[in-house]
């Protein structure tokens, strides 16, 4: 039986981890490679890097990070943040990323999704959707949540599925950073409308939130803070989910 995935996410800026796990025995707490290795050794089903490097001159730092990580971690690696073009995707894949997540570029020009999924296969194209509740609906935002678009999140999710996305990474901007749990309604409505897997993101503060995310219909749950700050380990998260009869790989 297919297991539900737990995906720790690391924010990487200028090639260094921001808000990394603070373990005493780490040689270099800011090294994304070492942090990714801790996660994969701890049973993470996938690793996600979100590149938040702001300046253009430092954008190439992510390629080196991905290359070094893929030589040390033998679980799937998803990389997102600042991916603009098919060429950017190609470069990340060549460095050893297994999947690339696209956000702003997918909204601005859906051809990027069409072309890249044809060229590299749907299996490596993840579309990241940042959504915010607006009345009865959810609206998507771009540029790391700064720009509103007026686009309905469900319609956009369906469009991305048709364009060839292999997965959707859905983040609730209302919940992100609050540690009050995923936006369950949003996850439910998106995952029941599409036939591709949904990764729930934004708002995890407790292990029970992970369980709620899976119960909402998401195939995978992504979390950053609870793992970064060492509140819980990936192993503890999995044991908790297993105790709630949620199938996980242990």
């Amino acid at each position, binding site marked *: 039986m297919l297991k539900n995935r737990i995906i720790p996410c690391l924010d990487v800026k200028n090639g260094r981890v921001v808000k990394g796990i603070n373990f005493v025995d780490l040689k270099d707490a800011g090294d994304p490679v070492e942090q990714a290795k801790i996660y994969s050794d701890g049973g993470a*089903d996938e690793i996600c890097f979100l590149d938040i490097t702001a300046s253009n001159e430092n954008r190439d730092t992510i390629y080196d990070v991905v290359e070094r990580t893929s030589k040390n971690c*033998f679980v799937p690696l998803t990389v997102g943040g600042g991916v603009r073009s098919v060429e950017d995707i190609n470069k990340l*894949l060549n460095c050893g990323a297994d999947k690339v997540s696209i956000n702003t570029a997918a909204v601005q020009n859906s051809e990027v999704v069409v072309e890249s999924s044809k060229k590299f296969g749907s299996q490596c194209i993840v579309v990241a959707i940042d959504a915010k509740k607006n009345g009865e609906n959810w609206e998507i935002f771009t540029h790391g949540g700064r720009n509103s678009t007026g686009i309905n999140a469900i319609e956009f999710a369906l469009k991305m599925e048709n364009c060839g996305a292999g997965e959707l990474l859905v983040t609730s901007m209302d919940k992100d950073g609050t540690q009050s749990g995923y936006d369950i309604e949003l996850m439910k409505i998106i995952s029941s409308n599409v036939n591709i*897997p949904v990764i729930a993101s934004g708002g995890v503060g407790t292990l029970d939130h992970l369980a709620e995310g899976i119960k909402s219909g998401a195939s995978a749950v992504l979390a950053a803070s609870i793992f970064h700050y060492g509140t819980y380990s990936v192993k503890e998260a999995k044991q908790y989910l297993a105790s709630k009869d949620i199938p996980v790989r242990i």
Partner: protein
Amino acid sequence: MNVTIVDYNSGNISSVINSFKEVAKDKVNIEVTSDLKKIKSSDKVVLPGQGSFKSCVDALNNISGLVDTLTEFAIANKKPLLGICVGLQMFADIGYEETETKGLGWVSGKVSKIDNQNGKYKLPHIGWNQINIVKDGKIFKDIENNSHMYFVHSYEFVPKDRNVISATTNYSSNIVCSVEKENIFGTQFHPEKSDKIGLKIIDNFLNL
């Protein structure tokens, strides 16, 4: 020993290269090439494959002489060959992704879309699933039954002769996830992304 990973523009093969190099260390020489001479003189060949059945078959055919060289290697000379994901699927006679496309025909059968039971099962089948080992395959040495492997695919290989199946996995139905026919091995899952247990499968192949 020389092992060649066939580089034929079949999408992203960095993870395959990294994992084989990790396992091979300095015991085995890993070549990544489409050079026909190098393939011919290899002891073993790895045939990766990502993207669609059609795009991979087209990419193989785009390199003049490659299909013949691989067929000679695997069928006439009976040297060990491991196909991964679409690399395994291409063993079939025919595939139905995008359009009907002729495969290599090494292991008789077809490649068709997984039945998602009207949306009950999400596709692609992405993530960690358990394998049910149905015969003592050589690449499963010291691999426990029900081990988890990493999958990502929407199509399944349906061989004519069920005896070639070495493992299945349950997703919508019992999907063939590994075949072994004499010197020809294939996995639908990605050993290169299946953590330590996946590396063990690679090690088993290198130690054949």
